[in-house]
Structures are given as structure tokens and as C-alpha cells.
């Protein structure tokens, strides 16, 4: 039996890893341009494309349940007293903001 919290958190792990990969990839892209290595820059940009698509996919997969289930099972756990923030959101992801 699938649990909405498992889905929500499980595919967020995918998202965080995707975004860390994007940080590495785009730094390498920038470095390739500085070095004038256009072939490597192309490789890094193609990788970044895959990682962007994967990031979108992980967020869609993380929401693989109804709006009603989100409102009843997911959102309350992202509100006090379960979390400290009154305005808990994905903008609090360190990797995402760093990217």
C-alpha cells in the first residue's frame, strides 16, 4: 500500500539529488567555457538538460496523489507544530536557492 508521505518525501530526495547534480554540472559548464573547451561545454549542457527534465519529473512524481490527499495528509505536516516556519515552502531548499 502506498503512503502519501512516502511518495512525497521519497521523490523529494530525488529532487534534491538532481539539483546537487545540476550545481556540479553548471559549474563544469562555466569552467569549460572559461577554458574554451566547447566540446565539454556541450556535454555538460546536454547533461544539464537531462537533469532539468529529471527535476521536473521528480516533482511531478512527488505529487502522485489527489489534491484532497495533499490537503489532508501532506500540507498539515508542513505547518506548526510539525515545523517551525509559518510559511514553509520549497523556497527553503538550500540547494534550490543556491542553484
Amino acid at each position, binding site marked *: 500500500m502506498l503512503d502519501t508521505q512516502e511518495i512525497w518525501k521519497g521523490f523529494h530526495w*530525488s529532487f*534534491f539529488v*538532481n539539483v546537487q547534480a545540476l550545481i556540479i554540472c553548471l559549474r*563544469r559548464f562555466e569552467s569549460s567555457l572559461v577554458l574554451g573547451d566547447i566540446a565539454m561545454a556541450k556535454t555538460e549542457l546536454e547533461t544539464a538538460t537531462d537533469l532539468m527534465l529529471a527535476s521536473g519529473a521528480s516533482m511531478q512524481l512527488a505529487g502522485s496523489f489527489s489534491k484532497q490527499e495533499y490537503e489532508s495528509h501532506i500540507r498539515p505536516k508542513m505547518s506548526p507544530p510539525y515545523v517551525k516556519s509559518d510559511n514553509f515552502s520549497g523556497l527553503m531548499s538550500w540547494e534550490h536557492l*543556491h542553484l
Partner: protein
Amino acid sequence: MTHYDEFELNLLVPWDLPIDEQLSEANTVKLSQALSQILKALKQVDVSSALIIVEDELYKLGSPDVFPAKISSSKTALKSWEIEDFDSHFDVNHVESQQPAFCIVKSLMLAVYRMFVLLDKQNNNFDSTQVERQKQGYISYIRLLSRVYHLQLNPKSKI
């Protein structure tokens, strides 16, 4: 109890993420073998077979030496308590490590493992197109890490 209740995801702090690093020969071999096996898992049609491969590699990799990052400054607009609040909800820790390469590979493997645990559940209705996109993202990340750390992936794992 799920397979991964014992796990938390340890993520390196963003500024420790490498772009080019030469590992020792022993560590190059170890990580090349581990990531080649994860590529093999990502190509499996049968989810249970993939899970067995990833579980085996997680066991072999062990637990890299990590310690909690001191988030006195996030170098972003975020306050440290906001990062900790967010991380706590998602069972994530931001860490520093004397073995950053192993830490990065372990985080990738745990995320892959958790995906396969979810895909292995009966009656799941995950969008197959999105699942394939996520798998391709992991494959591309493994190839990215092979460039960063100068790894030799098993040619049979090539996609």
C-alpha cells in the same frame, strides 16, 4: 516499517560539491565499480532485481565519515534555522565529510534506492514517462560523476 526507515539523506553542503577531483587509485576502482552497478540497476526492467543490486551496493559502500555542517551562514538569503526546518521535514542532513566523493555517491544511491522501493509497491500509478525521465537523470548524473572523478565505468553499462 519501510526499507529505508533507518536512513537519512546526507547531502554535502553546496560549496563542497566538486567539479574536478582525482581520487586515489583504490577509491577510483571502488567508486567505478559501485556506479557501474547502479547503472546496471537503472537498466533493469524488473524493479525487484534493481532493488537487490542497489541494496548490495549500499551495503558494500558502507557509511562514509560525515559530520553535521555548521550552517552559520548559508551564503544565500536563507537563515540557518530555515534550512534546518526544511531538512528535518524531509529527513535530510547537510554535512561535511573527509570522504566527499563517497558521501555524494551514497546520497545518489539512497535516492535511487528509495525510488525503486516506491516503484516496487503494488498498485502504484506513477506516470511512466516521468519515471523514465528520472531514471535518465540518474544515469546522466552517474556519467557526470565519472567525469568529475575520472572514473572508468563498465562499458557494458553504457546507454
